[in-house]
């Protein structure tokens, strides 16, 4: 149907040319602004992680069936056991326990183990390396670098004998294992429990309701604002050709920050109004549900027996 004349927009001449030809790819292809691409990929990664944890928490695994409060207390008990034990065997048993828990909860065991042990414990180990030397932890030599020599390092005189002590090595190894085991158990808990239930379970260890509510809302709006940031950066990406200069990158980053800040301020006001309109007066009321089933009792018993035996048994094994 023709458009009525008074409302027909006057198209500028350049807009009247149909240019649908596809150009040959240039030699410099692949140099599309790395900054925007990286930002988009990182945002997507966080959003995928968020969805992944929801997916796993709905799998029909054993831990998914256990009450979040029981799981939280169990994981805390296991982490504390790992923290206080002085036995390498106990740590290995705890790692094995974590691995079994992961497998019976239908989590991708190998992928998660690589992710867990490949980063944070490794960083911890690196940070613990100086503590392995006899400079900080004197003891039985395990690996001797030199003996009875005067050695200077950046103007400081090192000891006449430098070695990695057995005690220092054990301390670093313990730290490495404790971090890895805690991460492994923590991740199992997070992946097998929907976020809202996990946060609510924090009440059993005395975390105030208002604090839980704030974390819950913060997480929810971070995801929302990430979606908004993704739109911002994708809209920019389709209009960006080639590499951006560092000043353009700063400008883009600054303007995105400003847009997000302004949007989040407006949103915050509306969210507060929405809460007020449903009777919120500063003190959140929630339903406390305490329905523990047989599986929860059985799981609790297993964890109590395991941790007690490990703590007591740890005194007798080295």
């Amino acid at each position, binding site marked *: 149907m023709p458009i009525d004349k008074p409302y027909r927009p006057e198209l500028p001449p350049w807009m009247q040319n149909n240019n649908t030809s596809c150009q040959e790819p240039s030699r410099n292809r692949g140099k599309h602004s790395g900054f925007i691409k990286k930002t988009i990929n990182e945002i997507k990664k966080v959003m995928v992680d968020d969805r992944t944890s929801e997916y796993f928490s709905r799998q029909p695994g054993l831990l998914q069936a256990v009450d979040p409060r029981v799981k939280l207390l169990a994981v805390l008990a296991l982490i504390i056991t790992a923290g206080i034990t002085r036995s390498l065997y106990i740590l290995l048993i705890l790692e094995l326990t974590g691995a079994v828990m992961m497998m019976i909860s239908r989590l991708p065991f190998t992928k998660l183990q690589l992710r867990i042990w490949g980063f944070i414990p490794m960083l911890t180990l690196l940070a613990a390396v100086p503590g392995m030397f006899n400079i900080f932890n004197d003891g039985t030599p395990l690996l001797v670098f030199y003996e009875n020599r005067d050695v200077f390092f950046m103007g400081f005189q090192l000891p006449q004998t430098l070695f990695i002590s057995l005690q220092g090595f054990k301390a670093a190894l313990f730290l490495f294992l404790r971090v890895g085991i805690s991460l492994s158990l923590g991740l199992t808990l997070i992946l097998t429990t929907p976020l*809202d239930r996990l946060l609510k379970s924090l009440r059993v260890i005395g975390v105030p309701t208002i604090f839980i509510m704030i974390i819950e809302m913060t997480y929810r709006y971070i995801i929302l604002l990430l979606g908004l940031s993704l739109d911002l950066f994708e809209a920019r990406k389709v209009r960006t050709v080639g590499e951006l200069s560092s000043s353009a990158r700063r400008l883009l980053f600054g303007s995105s920050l400003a847009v997000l800040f302004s949007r989040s301020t407006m949103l915050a006001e509306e*969210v507060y*109004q*929405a809460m*007020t309109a*449903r*009777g919120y007066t500063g003190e959140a009321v929630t339903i406390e549900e305490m329905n523990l089933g047989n599986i929860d009792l059985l799981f609790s018993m297993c964890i109590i027996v395991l941790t007690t035996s490990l703590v007591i048994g740890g005194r007798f094994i080295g």
Partner: protein
Amino acid sequence: MADNIFELQQVSFSYRSEGSLFSGLNLSVKAGDSICLLGANGSGKSTLLKILCALNYPENGSFKAFGRDITEKLMEDDNFSKNYYRQVGFVFQNSDAQLFTSRVWDEIAFGPLQMGLPADEVKIRVNDILRMLNIEHLMDRPPYRLSGGEKKKIALAAVLVINPEVLILDEPTAGLDPRSQRWLVELLLQLNSIGRTIIIATHDLNLAHTLTKRTLVLSEYHQVVFDGPVEEALDNKDLLIKVNLIDEFSHTHGHTEHVHVYTHG
């Protein structure tokens, strides 16, 4: 009049950054009314709804609800405020602002719990609402991962569960597919037929015609330029053109069940 549930007299309101929005605004709403605020974007529909919901307060003039003067100070009284929101439910235009918890069930239970309803009663109401709106399958999902239509349903459920006497909806059909729109219209008509007061803001003329009996038309200069039967407003082409709800090439066709206004493509 005694049966007015809302009464605005000589109300003026402004946003600090944008200057005066309303001045000398008069409006009364009776129990059981179905009212539609019609107006172009930026005409002040949402602000007016928020005044009725005691989320914004008039700078001058008086705003009475259920026979009482509503002031910011009065709304600071927790008991009064809770009681007020038990009677007046507000569905926001932006569902993302309204859905702030991380589980649909908790989102719907939030209102009645804050109102002080016993936990067992809350559980019954939430489950009934989930069943009524056919959204039981969503109850464990985080609201922010739902589609626009689903979010709207949850936002509506979160208000309906309080069972308010007055239901205020800001652009209720925005972002809804045709089937969901029809479902919403049927629901609101049914609620109105059992005595609930319905107030909606929209620029959807079809919705106004189908759903409400009375309409208030706001001009782009934030003035109420019409207050009367919806058919009368929709038949007044000059008025609709003046307030930018249709353009001069719009027209109606059909005269019985199928009256609507649309623009040429």
